[in-house]
């Protein structure tokens, strides 16, 4: 009998423990809670924002889009005021009704954006997302270790013998697939089964020539010489260029995707005015230039880009890419149900011997 009572109490304690964990998991409501990738904005942003506006913000970090999306979908968007996510995920938040409409009157610095950045296909007129950084995905290589400069995605997917075993590709589903889609002349949002079958076959044969799939250290593999040619986001290639000027970046002749990271205000936010203030603060030319100078990504902010030193544009030529050229490329879009097919194709590629 004693045993029984105790184990029931133990269960109650356990349930209480779980509840407490659940409470601890949601951020406190008093602050403006901003979730961003680690190191994606100035480390003193909380202090400078408070000095400028008097609003206390709290920054939490997520490692990937998928991680923060999982949390937002599970909580119905509660617990966060502003999230930084890539544009296809901003679209999903909008489609799920979790994204607040951007009140342009409260974000006057939207005027700093290039007109092109306010007319992107995923969200023309910036109704639910505000562009933060943008760029391309291409080839990053050691000009001193490859015989000739690559010009096509085929240089990576059907490599010459000399570079076999010295290439890496991105492991994230959409960019891995994009390399194959672009090489075959398809849209980066192609979902036709026959065409995606061809993409899969090409990427499986490419896999056999790869050193590794790598999303995070490919540029250091170039620096060490372990790899000589890698699929890379332009900004990450810049980290390699910073350490070794023989590293170069090119956009293959078949093109690139136009990737875009955005700021989204959550509909469940209880501090929407403060959230718009924060976005306005980030769009300030000086604050936005911080991202370009420190993350080496292009930012869609005209005065911010114009304020960058000329040496920087010389050292990292992709930073100087004209906006008109950049927006020629197609954005990755949310593909809805087809995402499951994409996941399956990626599993098939990764499981292939």
């Amino acid at each position: 009998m004693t045993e029984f009572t105790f184990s029931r109490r133990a269960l109650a304690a356990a349930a209480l423990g779980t509840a407490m964990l659940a409470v601890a998991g949601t951020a406190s409501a008093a602050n403006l809670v901003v979730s961003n990738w680690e190191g994606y904005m100035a480390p003193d942003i909380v202090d400078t924002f408070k000095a400028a506006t008097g609003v206390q913000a709290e920054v939490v970090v997520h490692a990937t889009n998928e991680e923060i999306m999982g949390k937002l979908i599970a909580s119905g968007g509660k617990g966060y005021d502003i999230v930084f996510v890539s544009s296809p995920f901003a679209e999903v938040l909008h489609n799920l009704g979790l994204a607040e409409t951007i009140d342009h009157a409260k974000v006057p610095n939207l005027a700093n954006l290039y007109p092109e950045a306010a007319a992107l296909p995923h969200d023309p007129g910036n109704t639910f997302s505000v562009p933060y950084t943008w760029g391309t995905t291409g080839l990053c290589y050691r000009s001193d270790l490859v015989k000739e400069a690559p010009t096509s995605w085929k240089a990576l997917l059907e490599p010459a013998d000399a570079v076999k075993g010295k290439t890496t590709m991105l492991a994230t589903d959409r960019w891995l697939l994009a390399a194959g889609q672009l090489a075959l002349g398809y849209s980066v949002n192609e979902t036709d089964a026959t065409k995606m079958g061809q993409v899969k076959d090409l990427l499986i044969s490419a896999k056999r020539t790869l050193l590794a799939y790598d999303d995070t250290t490919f540029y250091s593999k170039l620096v060490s010489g372990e790899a000589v040619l890698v699929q890379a986001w332009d900004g990450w290639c810049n980290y390699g260029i910073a350490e070794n000027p023989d590293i170069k970046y090119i956009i293959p002749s078949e093109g690139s995707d136009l990737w875009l990271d955005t700021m989204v205000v959550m509909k469940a936010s209880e501090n929407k005015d403060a959230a718009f203030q924060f976005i306005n603060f980030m769009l300030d030319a000086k604050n936005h230039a911080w991202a370009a100078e420190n993350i080496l990504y292009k930012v869609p902010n005209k005065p911010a880009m114009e304020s960058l030193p000329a040496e920087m544009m010389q050292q990292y030529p992709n930073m100087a890419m004209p906006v008109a050229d950049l927006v020629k490329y197609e954005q990755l879009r949310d593909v809805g149900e087809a995402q499951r097919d994409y996941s399956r194709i990626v599993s098939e590629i990764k499981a292939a011997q």
Partner: protein
Amino acid sequence: MAVRLVPSRSTVLMAPALAWLTALMVVPCVLVLALAFFRRGIYGGVDYTFTLENFAAVVDPLYAGIFLNSARIAGLATLIAVVVGYAAAYAIAAAPRHRQPLYLFLAVLPFWSNYLIRTYAWIVLLNREGLLTQLLRWVGYTGELPSLLYTEGAVIAGLVYNYLPFVVLACYAPLARLNPELREASRDLGGSAFTTFRRITLPLTLPGVAAGAVFVFVLSIGNFVTPALLGGGRFQMIGNLVYDQFLAANDWPFGAALAMALIAIMMLLLMLQAFAATRAEGRQSPDRGEAAHG
């Protein structure tokens, strides 16, 4: 009073562990199991309509193939770990008694550092511009070297390295307990060293081998860090597939079904091992008699 104190004290002592297990093990497992019966929403998340399609997908040739491949890699790692670990345990058990604690301590010393850091150490060691290559260059080798890293061999080496101490510990216990007189009797009756090992030592220490082997296999087949880091993402193991469903594809229901299948395999193996151990325990005394009589 004193009589009642005993059971309540034991329940009080049990309560924290029970609460811990319930909150952090039983409840999450039940939640994951429940998740496996729903559909993925169009945009990720969970659509709460009942379905069995996730379990059907687990036995799809593609995913079943990944299970089999994981089992093959885990099996190879287990085989190597058992051979190497048993030999090491044998040597430790044969060493002078006062030195044995030191050797055992050295065997488990790697556990004092973080698993990830130890795995990164292998990257530093094996990569094409790594320590091994530099060593070869230093002794005068100038040719092109293949990458040792990002191969299946590297994945297996990483698994063996990380789980070897479990085998050493599991095999050491029965080896150290083994009555030396049994072996002496076998030698006295003309059994060769090999026969003595095959007929006496090995059968009596088999439960330890089985325990160590099941440990390595179960930990290896669910591992996702080692294949990701040492395999460069080129070798998909079941752990990576589960990880991808949760953290890349946002298909939690399918990830949950895969995780449940993996847990079922692990539990089955652990139960078989426990069953075999109990049977071996029961047979222990008559076996000893038979062995002694040769």
